[in-house]
């Protein structure tokens, strides 16, 4: 989530910059959270966040890379990163799902 993006700074260089939030909206927003009770928590100093992370990673050495592989992407239903002539936009099913059809 955007709210989980911490500033990279000279003092804490291992953090992803929150500026990336917009620039890298892709990775960021893709990461729907499993647990959303952590939203906004990165405003507390000391927490570490990762691009695309929906959660605070803290100092946990075990990072979740499940969904960074082709299989993981397939599992989650990610179908981007493939060239197409036009941006087709939302499908009729997606619009219907959101009450926009």
């Amino acid at each position, binding site marked *: 989530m955007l709210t989980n993006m911490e500033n990279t700074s000279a003092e804490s260089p291992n953090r992803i910059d929150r500026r*990336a939030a917009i*620039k890298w909206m892709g990775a960021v927003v893709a990461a729907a959270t499993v647990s959303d009770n952590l939203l906004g928590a990165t405003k507390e100093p000391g927490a570490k966040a*990762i691009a695309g992370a929906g959660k605070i990673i803290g100092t946990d050495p075990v990072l979740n890379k499940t969904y960074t592989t082709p299989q993981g992407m397939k599992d989650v239903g990610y179908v981007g990163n493939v060239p197409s002539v036009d*941006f087709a936009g939302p499908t009729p099913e997606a619009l219907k799902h959101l009450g926009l059809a």
Partner: protein
Amino acid sequence: MAIISEKDLQPIYDVIVVGSGAGGGQSAYTLTMNGVKVLMLEAGRNYDPVTETPMFQIPSQMPLRGMGTREKPFGFTDATVDGGWEVPNEPYTQASADPKTHFKWWRPRMLGGRTNHWGRISLRNGPYDFKPYSRDGLGFDWPISYEDVAPYYDKVEMLVGVYGSNEGLENTPDSPNGTLLPPPKARAGELFVKKHIAKHGLPVIPIHRAVLSTRQDHVNFPARLHPNNPKAQKIIAKAMQERAACFWATDCGRGCSIKANYQSTTVHLPPALATGNLDILCNAHAREVTVGADGKATGIIYIDKVTGQERAVKAKAVILAASSGETARIMLNSKSNRFPNGIANGSGLVGKYIMDTVGGRLGGTVPAFENLPVHNEEGAGTHVYIPWWLYKEASKLGFARGYHIEFGTGRRMPGMGTGGASPGYGKSYKEEVRQKYGSGIGFSGRGEMIPNENSFCELDPTTKDKWGIPVLRFHWKWSDHELKQAEHMEQTFHMIIETIGGKPGKMSKTKEEAIEAPGSIIHEVGGAIMGADKAKSVTNQWNQCWEVPNLLLNDGSAFCSNADKNPTLTIMALAWRASDHLVEEMRKGNL
């Protein structure tokens, strides 16, 4: 002429351009298309997006799965090489220990500068944005109006290729018909937001971005760009045909190997080189502008970063476009008997009135987005935005000026941490991730900062970089206008997320907490403001230094306000305008 090494330097050039980003790229383009012989000095290394861009890599193919590091703050595939918040051997300092006064300075060090990875959001300043002082008594009016710049906005939009639409909204200018490229469709979540917030009066419209949604009109644009200049028309027509249209798949922040988005290295420099009038010298760090007995600029002293040697090059005119902070630094370091406080700094205003954009943000999750039927939502970043909508309410808000809102939704490329901090187990875990993936939303506000006396840079009296060049020391203070604006942003985002049935993230406790750190939006401008009065400004309306008319400042340093419109399109429009004027002055023999 080409990308050269030191031994190929000519004894004298018409113009030296320092920096190869948006301002330097546009200046070199305009000048060389008009037959002017240009040397471009770039502190960073040569960089070729066509061969160096990792277009389709997914995180599992990247070191650290693409995570940000000290060397790569925006992650492994970001286009930035050798740049960042910290640049080895090139420190900068803060005047006070209080973190609230610290300015974070993002510096690129590569051919093309920040244009290789910028967000490509390309908004025109509106008529109000050039006359802010006249409207509310704060800051400064520009010595030019929207009408002066509009023809150059048209040209830059045609040259670089900008998608967007004309909506006829207040202070959000339309472009002439046939100038913009068609905008991409809005994503599902974007349409959802649009539908539900209309009742609050917030318009969601196509954003303007420097991305080729279709190929450029290489038949008609060249004559509109370069009337009466057949050679230039031919060169740009060819260059336009070498650019492909966006294929809606990859992350523009990595750069674009098919030249579908704007970066100086794929759009400005190739045609400029094709004129035969441009030499580019990389790894050449400009230290100071040299001055002759007549007080005019005579050239540049630079450090060859590979050998550490100091060299001098000569020209009839000099353009600084090293990014606003670095331009101020070069000027302050250009001390002579005639200019003891730095070149063209008789007013004492070099380094003063530096600005960034006011940033605020809030994210949330939206249950309605869960289990969205699978479809592609990638391609060309932002598609829509919310322009500032409260011009009529200005007197009631408690702060001056406004902001626009950028937001993101969608089923974008998963990264580290997707699915929670650590992997779960079993079918239900996977199902939950599948359900929730793509249900996030993030809002960012981008607002106008008013220039103030307390936000400035100067030379640090003691700290020097590796080559012995004094570095910048920063001072910063927000005024209450910016702080209240950031607070207003957060409240608006909270309202929007609730309106769409989402769960907002945690709000800041204070307005000081709501505002992003100074410098972090990386829209640095100011430091050598333009004006109508030479006692109160550094340059005239042509980006020409009052005291040194053959020295031009063609990056954001001459900005005397920083509208919410993101600065780069305006940097390019003004660089084109200033370079046209320089060509004319040179022809007339006025320099």
